[in-house]
């Protein structure tokens, strides 16, 4: 196992700029295993996605965004439970476990998800999620290899942090964090508009995105641009014409 982790890290370290190491790890993982996409996400201790560090294709990206938007799904559960969440047949099992997430599966282009938590002792760093466009289990040896990729991803994140130094973020992780910035800013604004905590404000933002079938990112941009406010009316928000 350790030898395999070292092998993975060595092979992605061959040439190329450091910032793309997480991307290369995900790309190699797609080649090595019987899967079609990979996503590497940072997670906070309470299972809030801190952003995608790397993603290999559109369906994988869609799945990562959907889970962040809904606050539910295999990646969220893997991080919270600190255990791999293996879903070889999403179409038949996802709806029961994650109603909203499951409802999106038929059109998502993904039929199986294998989510592995990245953790060091008590600390949860993120999730490595493997996606496939057809249903089916990972074989025993593939599962072992997937765990080796998860360990390699953990080592890589720690190495990036080591290079960045305390209280800083590595440039390779900045993109992931920047991506989510507007959502967190909007969360802050909504918390003032509604007089609630940021946690509840995020739930309201999520609910609104779900109810109106709009991406959370778009709503956040509208809130930050002051074209939209959240309120306690029946509809839950007001659109402002000519906002900044």
């Amino acid at each position, binding site marked *: 196992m350790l030898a395999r982790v070292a092998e993975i890290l060595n092979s992605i370290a061959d040439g190329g700029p450091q910032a793309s190491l997480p991307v290369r790890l995900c790309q190699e993982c797609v080649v090595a295993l019987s899967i079609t996409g990979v996503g590497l996400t*940072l997670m*906070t*201790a309470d299972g*809030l996605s*801190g952003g995608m560090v790397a993603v290999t294709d559109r369906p994988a990206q869609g799945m990562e965004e959907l889970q962040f938007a809904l606050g539910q799904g295999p990646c969220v559960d893997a991080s919270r439970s600190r255990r791999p969440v293996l879903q070889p047949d999403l179409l038949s099992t996802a709806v029961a476990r994650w109603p909203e997430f499951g409802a999106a599966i038929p059109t998502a282009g993904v039929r199986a998800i294998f989510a592995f938590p990245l*953790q*060091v*002792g*008590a*600390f*949860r*760093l993120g999730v490595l999620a493997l996606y496939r466009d057809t249903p089916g289990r990972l074989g025993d040896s593939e599962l072992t290899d997937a765990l080796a990729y998860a360990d390699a991803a953990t080592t890589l*994140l*720690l190495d990036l*942090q*080591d290079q*960045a130094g*305390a*209280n*800083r*973020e590595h440039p390779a*992780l900045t993109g992931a*964090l920047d991506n*989510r*910035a507007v959502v*967190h*800013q*909007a*969360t*802050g*604004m*909504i*918390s*003032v*508009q509604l007089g609630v905590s*940021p946690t509840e404000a995020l739930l309201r933002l999520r609910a609104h995105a779900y109810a109106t079938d709009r991406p959370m990112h778009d709503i956040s941009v509208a809130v*930050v641009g002051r074209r939209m406010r959240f309120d306690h009316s029946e509809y839950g928000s007001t659109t402002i014409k000519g906002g*900044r």
Partner: protein
Amino acid sequence: MTTREQLVAETFVELADTLVAEFDVIELLHTLASRSVELLDASAAGIMMSDQRGGLTVMASSAEEARLLELYELQNNEGPCLDCVRSGEPVVPADLAAMRTAWPEFTRRLQEFGFSTAQAIPLRLRSETIGALNLFRTSSTPMTQADLALGQALADVATIGLIQERAIAASQLLAEQLQAALNSRILLEQAKGVLAERTGLPMDQAFQLMRSHARNQGRRLGDIATEIIDGSLVLAGAKTG
């Protein structure tokens, strides 16, 4: 199995057993020191280890005399343990004359404590030397090759455990830092939103206001952000440009 063989076997198991939850570095080093005395025809043993800043610290000893002698080595900057850590090789002086030449002050003190010889075995894994095991003996005959080899084997097993423990501690620290960086980034963005909404300032100016407040007060940006979010800090919305 003879009693000695049994003790050797038990000691290896003891020293290798570092993955248990209650693993304690000092306890491991004390085990190494006291078993070395029992197994290696030594009268006392002490262990010195390098700390994070590259200095050496006396970490464990089987007897007070051993601890004092090691402290003496550090104070006077001479002795077998220091040579051993510097070179990464075992230090086994041939006789008293050789010891007097190499470490005159240390040898005088050694004899005052009633010992005749001192040898040191490195705690080393590949190129990294993290400390040394000092063996003090009342017998003036040189230590046997068999005892030296066993001593090195005990030191090697203990070193693997120690390096593993250091690696785990280091990766936990990094994990904590990464998690903290993620959390503080989220907190900062939320605080920008809260401040922008309260003051009507654009997002970038809200951030400027937070930052200049933190700088003026000599406080951390993360603390300011927390207080803005929970409402305990209200910043004026005057345009700061």
